[in-house]
Every structure is written in C-alpha cells, then in structure tokens.
C-alpha cells in the first residue's frame, strides 16, 4: 500500500508539471503577424511579445495568467522574441505565468529586427509590447507594461460585445 501511495504521488507530481505538455510552439517570422490577424479576423484577441530577459514581460504575462480565464472569448497569443528560444524555457515561462495555452510562438529568424520592422516600422525591440485587437479589427498597440485596471476594462468591454 505504501508503494501504491508512492506511485500515486509521483504520477500526480508528473501530471502537475506537464500542464503545458501539449503546447504547440510555432515559428514566428516575417509575415506571421499578418497571418495571425487574418486568422482572428473579426474576433477580439491580444498579442503579447515578451523576452526571457524582460522582467516587465514576466509581470505582464502573470497578469494575463491571472485574468484570461474569466474572458474565454478573447484569444491570448504570446510570442517570445528571443530567436529560437528553447521549448523548455518557453514552457517554463508560460507555466510560471499560469498561462495554459494550446499554442505559442517563438521568433524564428536570426535577426529579430526584420520581424520588428514587419510588425511596426517604429519598433526597435523595446519590451513589453502588446497589441490589442477588438472585434472590429481595431488595433491598439501598447508599449511598456499594461496597467491591470486598463486591461480589465478592455477585456470586459470586448466580452460584452
């Protein structure tokens, strides 16, 4: 019986740590921004760019992790801007932020500035940067960490439509 308890404990721990085991990590390159916009045409979504070296980004991801389940009609799309960032690191960051997503994106070009310019000609890589798209495809770009009350207001407004 002791052995059974031990086995159950090990399996439980393994299960908890693999919450994002099914996470699909997709390559984000020049053109991906347009593709995602087409994919979510007429639907509200948030596109969050982050980096493993950006502490503001971690704080922002955690904020989304805390809130997003209350707004299931709004897609949350995360993009790591560290080119070819290892899967383990990506999963670790999302796990730590409590973001349980089916898919996420990672920059897949050696020279990230080509992607920055493709998304916004004035973006030089400052982080965090978050793009909000409402149900009418209106885009709002926010540079720097998003304030929680403003985020809740936007998410609530989108959910109401």
């Amino acid at each position, binding site marked *: 019986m002791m052995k*059974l308890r031990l086995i*159950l404990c090990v399996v439980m721990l393994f299960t908890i740590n693999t919450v994002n085991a099914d996470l699909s990590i997709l390559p984000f390159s020049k053109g991906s921004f347009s593709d995602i916009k087409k994919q979510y045409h007429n639907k509200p979504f948030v596109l969050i760019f982050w980096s493993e070296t950006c502490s*503001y980004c971690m704080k922002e991801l955690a904020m989304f992790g805390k809130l997003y389940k209350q707004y299931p009609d709004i897609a949350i799309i995360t993009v790591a801007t560290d080119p070819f960032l290892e899967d383990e690191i990506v999963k670790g960051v999302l796990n730590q932020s409590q973001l349980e997503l089916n898919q996420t994106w990672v920059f897949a070009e050696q020279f990230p500035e080509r992607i920055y310019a493709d998304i916004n000609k*004035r973006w030089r890589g*400052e*982080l965090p940067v978050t793009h909000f798209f409402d149900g009418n495809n209106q885009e709002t770009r926010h540079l720097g960490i998003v304030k929680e009350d403003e985020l809740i207001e936007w998410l609530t407004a989108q959910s109401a439509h």
Partner: protein
Amino acid sequence: MNKNLLYILIFAVVLNTSCSTRNSVETSVSPQHTAEIKEAPSKPKKHKHHIPEGVISADIFNDNNRLHLLTGKHSQGKKSLWYQYSTDGGKSWSIENKILNDDNISAKIVRGNDAQITAQGSNVVVSWTKHDKTTRFHAGAMLAARSTDGGETWQYSEIPPDWKQGPHGYIDMTADNHAMHAVWLDSRNGPSGVNASQGLRYARSIDGGLSWQANNTLDKLSCSCCWNTIKTDTKGNTYVLYRDKQPSDLSIGVIDKKQQWQRLNHVGAFDWQFDGCPHIGGGLDFQTIAGKNRQHAVVGTGHPQHLGIHYLYSDDAGKNWSTAKQLGDESAIHADIAAHDNGRVVTVWDMMGEDGLAVFFAESKDQGVHWSEAEQISKAGMRATHPRIVKTKNGFLSIWTENNGHIQTLATKRL
C-alpha cells in the same frame, strides 16, 4: 476515510484538473480556425542554442595608448573569454589569450550586457555576470578575473560588489592613474515599488583590482536593463551616464575626488515615460582644447517624438547640456562616442540598413558643432550591431559584431 482511497481521490482530482486546463480559449473559435491550427507550418530546423555562435560580447579600453580588447565567444553551448592588446591603435593585435584557460566559463553575456575590461599598467581586470540556472533570468553574481602581467596569465579575483549574492549586471569599468572604477546594477535593497528597477552601484579599487572598497549607491532607482557608462576626466572626477527611471531618460552624475556623488542632470531631457525594457544606454567622452573642457554624449531614446539617437555636449562639467541633435534615423538604437583633443568627435551607432541592422558613423571636426552625413562602415549583407569606439593616439578605433546568419565575428575599423 481509508487513506488509500483518499490518495486515489486526490489523484483523480489532479488528473481531471490538468486535463481540463488543456482546453484553452482557442478551442472556442470557429472550425475554420481549428483547421488552420491543424495546418500550422511545421517548425523549421532550430539552432541548437538561441545564442549566436562566435563573438557574443566585446569591450575595449585604452590605457595610455595600449588598447585592451576583451571578447566573449560562444561555441556549441560553451562560452569563453579572450584577451588581446594593441599598441598601434588597432592596426595589429597580440595573439588571443584565453582568460583563465577555460573553454566553458560560467557567463551570462550578450551584446549590450557585455563582459567588461579595464587596465592600469600591467594590471588588467575583467568582469562579467555569471550564468546561474537557479535564478529567474539565469543572471547570477558578478565574477572577475585579474592579470598582473599584462594579460599573460589570469586568476579569479575579488569582485567590486560587497553585496555578493547578486545578481549583478550591466557592468562598466574604467581606470585612471589613481584607481580602477566599476559601476553595475543590483537589487540589494529589495523591491523598490517601481516596476523592474534596480539600483546603480559603484566601487573603486586603489590596488589595481586586488581589492575593492565599500560600495556606494549612486541611484536607488535606475533602469534594470540598460548599459551604463563610466569615464574619468583628467581632474580625478568620475562620471557615470545611466538610464534613469521616471522618466526613462539618461542621467549623468559625478563622483568627485572626495568620493562624493552628485547627480547632475538629464542628458537629453525627453521626458520619456516608459514602463519597460529599452536595452539602450549611451556614450560619453571628454575633450580639452586650449584649456576649455567639453563633454560629449550620445544617448538613445524610444520617446515617440524623439525616436533614435541624439548627440549633446556640455561645457560646464555635465551640469547643463546642449539641445539634442539627432544622428541617423528613427531606427538608430545603440550608440557610442569618442572625442579627440584635436577637435574631432566621432559617433558610431547601428540602425536599419538594406540588410537589417548595420553600423554607421558620423564625424564632427569642430567639437560637435557640425556633423558629417552618416556613412555605413559595416559590411553589406551582414547584420552589424552594438558598435563601440575609443580614441587612439592618432585617431579612433571602432569595434562591433557582425553576423552572416551562421557565425558572429568581431569587426574593427580605424577612423
């Protein structure tokens, strides 16, 4: 309740919870979207590491016309530090010497947060941030190594911070005839209440890097992700240029001969309100002509109305600064500056060229009053970033890193 049954019930709850949480918000979208997810492109072949192969860190220091060059290299997951010197302004270099003879040094170094070097005669000191898997951003405490025979042999040495645990980052070092000086960022005072800020710290060594004196906190609230610049003038004053918080403009301060710190002013008062990580610092140098001292600075900003890099000068030891003059275009990011006592001032920076980021320079022959047009100095077809520049006996030497998509190398140009 039977203990075994309890364990089974707990297991069942956990298993059920983890399965249900795999249903993300995206499953609520249209079938068309689901089809698109299924057809998502397969991942391209990934590089084994997201760190470039080749040169990943570079710093240079001029000690009485002996140029000391420190490069950090990455090869298949392993990092190493290399030292060279030049006595002819960068025309030729000594054979590369692997610091500590270590192929696999623990280092968290990237361009923009490079390992640092300074020297006083035959004493050469290098410092860098250790790679620490246990910390959130894998940034650990500072490490240092010292040579007392002009870079031939090296030993680990005392580090400038007296708060040893770290992390410590964004180090800069310099030296004059009196002391070696170091600045860096750390969070020894704990959370400041301001998002992602750290404190700017300073220490000096009066025995060639053998030991470091008690630390001074120069600013409790500075940007946590921008490089700092420390320079000494000919009068024994030590200036520090760093990115401040609230607003996120660059500030300059001075540590005088009595070791008293005074923050002087913003360099480029753009009033950039930014709650994020710019990863952009500035450059600083001094010029003396006919007894008149001028400080020259180049600063980067992401303020939407002033995007890019800007040149400024001060004629009153950093207390007041000229109107900012933009160099390059809005895409200009990482810049450095050097000034000779013959009137020449040269600024180098990276900005978007035809192939991506490229390195450019502009020159003033009249102490910063008039500037030439920007001219590209990095090779076409290469991604070139993070230029640095030092004055040499007869001119200037600029260094930067170039990447051809496979390997990153160090490039130099005498100007």
